[in-house]
């Protein structure tokens, strides 16, 4: 029960977000005693200290030697950054990439502001970060194969960082424990420092322009990079404060809108912004819009009729007929009996699903209209997206798909997660169902998929699915991969959700039954919300795994981050055989994503009190 309380997000303005309930801070020991307690408590411990200290130093030494060695060709990943991020996305259309990232920045800023995200950090911790960070820089400077000039620069930098830490520590005195800063400001500060450095530090300007290698190590980063990043940071910070400002006023509505936007964003970004559909306005006006209107209003009328109170079994029968028609459309498509736009088939299917749910909205005029409005909005989104996705792209790119590198990695990970989530929930419900056939079917599916490596499933879908499809139906490589990956990931998600479902107590089911809720209402309103809440930490874990395992796409031919680093760059004439550097860079990119997600999950777990029992 206590876990639930913590879900109440405090939206009071100006209030600092609560730090996680940590035990009261122990008074810190003086350095001498601290070392005695933590490093030299016994002879054995002393030996361990020296052995592991030496090992750690050796490891850092090897790593630093490797990174700063003259043999390393860091120009390779630096020159190919664009390739690593977006593969062959046309340079003259690059503004679209920036707009997409900007959209994400807006949503991130608004969300962090609206939900008042982040912790409170004490100045003491911040000062300790500075000191540790500075010491580490000094260590690197001493171990790295630098010439004396470079080493001095690094040491000065280290001294400055440590100095800031010391200044905070001693400048504030004992107040360092009681002064808190929002962690989000620290994040903004770090981002600001990194992006600010693009304007000052000479990282060098590397690019491949029309196959020509541009490498100017003594120049500033290209303006096409540093200007967008600066604007993005400004957007992020700005929207954060807008979010904070709006949090108190219309929070509930805004939060719903932002969440909807998050759900829609991946589709809009990929199919509308990045793909830049070449709309044929005649066709849009003559076909697309009338069809959307017909489905919207026709369907709306049907739904309004179906929500009439006291309709009883007739409503279910009509919904069943609609479902049969919708299903028949797909079967007919398989055999090619009659032509029909894919959009129409989809709309029929959705109408049937809405009709099935209609009985829940039977009531007065307002409730009935709610469903109708929901339907109209939904149709607008579906038809808009379908039109955009169906229109040819203006991009001229060879190959199967216009995304590549990190963007493909993210695209596959996000799409897979979004698609496999509902499927996983259904499978989990099936596996915990009281109906034996559903249980057996779900269990067999889940256990079979979980018993087989992902790579075999990906092979199956990329190589073998075209065989299964009837003649005339094609499937792009990326689509086949996403479908296979979704079916795979759903089995794992199902197991995580099942854990949550089993944690819902029997009394909750009984109370719902006793109130007269139907089976689907009980599942939707009572059981799933509680189960999903419990399964958030393992679900985040699954999301991390999905993100990491997108790298397998490279084996079946996808041009994702891993493939570009391992195969593409090392095949360029300028960088023949250069692999290690690229692999290290992408390791870091993967690591940042996975590590931050896992930290977030640990925090959630602590807050939910799952770890302790």
């Amino acid at each position, binding site marked *: 029960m206590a876990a639930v309380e913590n879900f109440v997000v405090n939206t009071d303005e100006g209030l600092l977000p609560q730090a996680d309930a940590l035990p009261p801070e122990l008074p810190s020991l003086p350095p001498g005693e601290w070392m005695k307690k933590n490093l030299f408590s016994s002879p054995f411990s002393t030996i361990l200290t020296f052995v*592991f200290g030496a090992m750690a130093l050796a490891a850092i030494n090897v790593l630093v030697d490797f990174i700063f060695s003259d043999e390393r060709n860091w120009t390779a990943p630096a020159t190919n950054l664009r390739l690593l991020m977006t593969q062959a996305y046309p340079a003259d259309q690059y503004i679209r990439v920036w707009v997409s990232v900007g959209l994400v920045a807006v949503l991130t800023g608004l969300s962090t502001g609206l939900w008042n995200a982040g912790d409170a950090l004490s100045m003491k911790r911040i000062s300790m970060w500075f000191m540790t960070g500075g010491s580490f820089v000094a260590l690197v400077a001493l171990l790295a194969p630098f010439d004396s000039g470079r080493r001095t620069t690094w040491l000065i930098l280290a001294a400055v960082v440590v100095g800031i830490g010391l200044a905070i520590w001693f400048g504030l005195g004992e107040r360092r424990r009681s002064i808190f800063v929002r962690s989000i400001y620290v994040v903004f500060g770090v981002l600001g420092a990194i992006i600010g450095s693009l304007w000052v530090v000479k990282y060098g300007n590397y690019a491949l322009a029309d196959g020509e290698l541009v490498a100017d190590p003594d120049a500033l980063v290209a303006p096409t990079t540093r200007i967008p990043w600066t604007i993005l940071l400004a957007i992020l910070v700005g929207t954060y404060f807008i979010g904070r400002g709006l949090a108190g006023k219309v929070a509930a509505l805004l939060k719903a809108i932002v969440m909807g936007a998050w759900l829609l964003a991946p589709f809009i970004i990929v199919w509308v912004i990045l793909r830049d559909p070449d709309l044929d306005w005649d066709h849009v006006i003559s076909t697309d819009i009338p069809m959307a209107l017909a489905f919207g209003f026709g369907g709306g009328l049907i739904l309004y009729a179906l929500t009439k109170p006291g309709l009883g079994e007739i409503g279910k029968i009509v919904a069943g007929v609609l479902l049969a028609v919708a299903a028949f459309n797909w079967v007919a498509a398989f055999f090619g009996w009659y032509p029909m736009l894919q959009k129409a088939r989809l709309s029929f299917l959705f109408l049937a699903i809405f009709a099935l749910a209609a009985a829940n909205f039977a009531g007065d005029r307002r409730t009935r209209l709610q469903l109708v409005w929901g339907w109209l909005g939904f149709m607008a989104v579906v038809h808009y997206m379908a039109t955009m996705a169906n229109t040819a792209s203006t991009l001229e790119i060879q190959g199967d798909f216009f995304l590549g590198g990190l963007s493909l990695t993210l695209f596959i990970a996000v799409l897979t997660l979004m698609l496999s989530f509902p499927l996983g929930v259904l499978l989990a419900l099936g596996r915990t169902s009281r109906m034996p056939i559903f249980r057996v079917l779900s269990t067999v599916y889940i256990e079979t998929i979980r018993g087989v490596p992902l*790579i075999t499933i990906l092979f199956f879908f990329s190589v073998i699915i075209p065989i299964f499809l009837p003649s005339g139906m094609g499937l792009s490589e990326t689509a086949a991969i996403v479908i296979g990956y979704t079916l795979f990931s759903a089995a794992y998600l199902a197991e995580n959700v099942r854990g949550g479902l089993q944690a819902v107590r029997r009394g909750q089911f009984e109370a719902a039954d006793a109130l007269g809720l139907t089976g689907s209402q009980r599942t939707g309103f009572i059981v799933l919300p509680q189960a999903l809440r419990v399964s958030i930490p393992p679900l985040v874990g699954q999301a991390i795994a999905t993100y990491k395992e997108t790298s397998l796409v490279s084996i079946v031919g996808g041009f994702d981050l891993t493939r570009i680093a391992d195969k593409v760059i090392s095949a360029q004439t300028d960088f023949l055989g250069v692999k290690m550097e690229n692999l290290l860079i992408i*390791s870091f990119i993967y690591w940042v994503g996975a590590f931050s997600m*896992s930290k977030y999950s640990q925090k959630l777990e602590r807050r939910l009190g799952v770890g302790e029992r």
Partner: protein
Amino acid sequence: MAAPSLSTTQQQRPPLYRDAVVVKWALQLFILFLVLFAMWFLSKEAGDNLKAKGISTSFDFLSIDPGISLSEGIDTEPDTGGRALWVGMVNTLRLAIAGIFTATILGVAIGLARLSDNWIVRKFGNVYVETLRNIPLLVQILIWAALLGGLGRVALDNGPINGWLHISNKGVSIPRVFIADGFYQWAVVLLIGAVVGRWVFKQRTLKKDQTGEDTFPLGYAAAVVLVFGIIGWFIHPVFGFLNAPLQAISDAFGAIPEIAMQLALSAVAILFSARWIRNFFAERRTPAGTARLDDDDWFRVIFAAVGAAFACFFFLALWPGLSSWLINSFSDLFQVLADKFGDTPEGNARNGWPVDAKRPDIVQAGNFPNYGPAGLNMTLGFAAVFFSIVLYTGSFIAEIVRGGILAVAKGQTEAAQALGLRRSQMLRKVILPQAFRIVLPPLGNQYLNLTKNTSLAIAVGFSDLVQVGQTVGNQTGKPLSVFAIWMAFYLACSLTISVVVNFFNVRLKIVER
């Protein structure tokens, strides 16, 4: 009053479409039908398409020369597709077993390090875990491959430890301990030793229970097995006679007519179903008879019966080949066993040592020196996958071990101390059994993941099952059949690991009681 008349009525049946049980089962059967229909439809569609493209789904490629050569394994020039896949399976298993063994040791060490009192040790563990588990395994494999590939060539004398450990861009070579001719005879002796040892163990335990004195049952049992092992080392050729009876069993299996096997399988299915139904009735029987069986129960019973009937149909008519395949497999299995006891293919009696060992050697093949066959050679692919998979899985195992110990530690430690147990007793009798029980299921899961992850070896060209299967499938144009074999193999691995884990889990639950 209306009540008396109402109260004497029997339960009325509602119309079918409103009967909760009927609706429930109708829905389930409908979905089952849909799933079966979809599967039938898709496979029919695939069959047509395959025919149109001239691809067949048969397994005949298993006995045809695939015309490929493998980078490593027990047979690098397999003469049939089946043999090639078998080499892949052995390679996968070798990688998986070696990986599981090493990753467990590493994981436990790192897990304990993360709980250490010592700050540096603790931090070391933290950094290890947080770094390695957040980088995709595939990227780690590629990094190791790039790292090893960048090493120097094999040379005659640049070890690091010459004659014992060689590392180069051809991989790693270390001394090898291997099963020699006499091993299987020796294993029989060990088996007998184990049986006797178990008997001794029980006797000593019994004595301890009766007298209370320390009787060291485990020590005695180990000594018995050791004695058998030592004696067997010298007398093992005696067991060569087992060849004849095993051969006889093999022949006997081969002589079973197919129809007998079909009938036997059907009988087993019917027996199972009948037993289930009988138990079901027995469970529902009460002093008042079986009147309480409701519709739901009847549906279950009918379903069990129909299932048995379908199984019979399957064995007898749908796939009669299964029976002959089973007969052949059993026959082959015993044939292989018999061969292990008979003469070697060269015609020598098997009287060599059971186990032998050799040091790495370097041979001059053509212009460049290379590793010879004597040492245990890990090729670059094997080494890259092995190192990365061990380090990666180790980080997950470390977290599991740490969690398991943390989950037990506090109250139990205090309770054990209060009872006056010594520290070693406390660890052995209280903490470890409980921690082990908590740790076991997720550990089994990690072993499963490790086994599945060996399939990434394809990225560095190591000939594991997936890589071999892919090549064979492409060469012979039978990707579907290869996929079926993949599935069967990995499911068998998963099943084996879960059976082992469950076995220990059940044992530990008894310990706990």
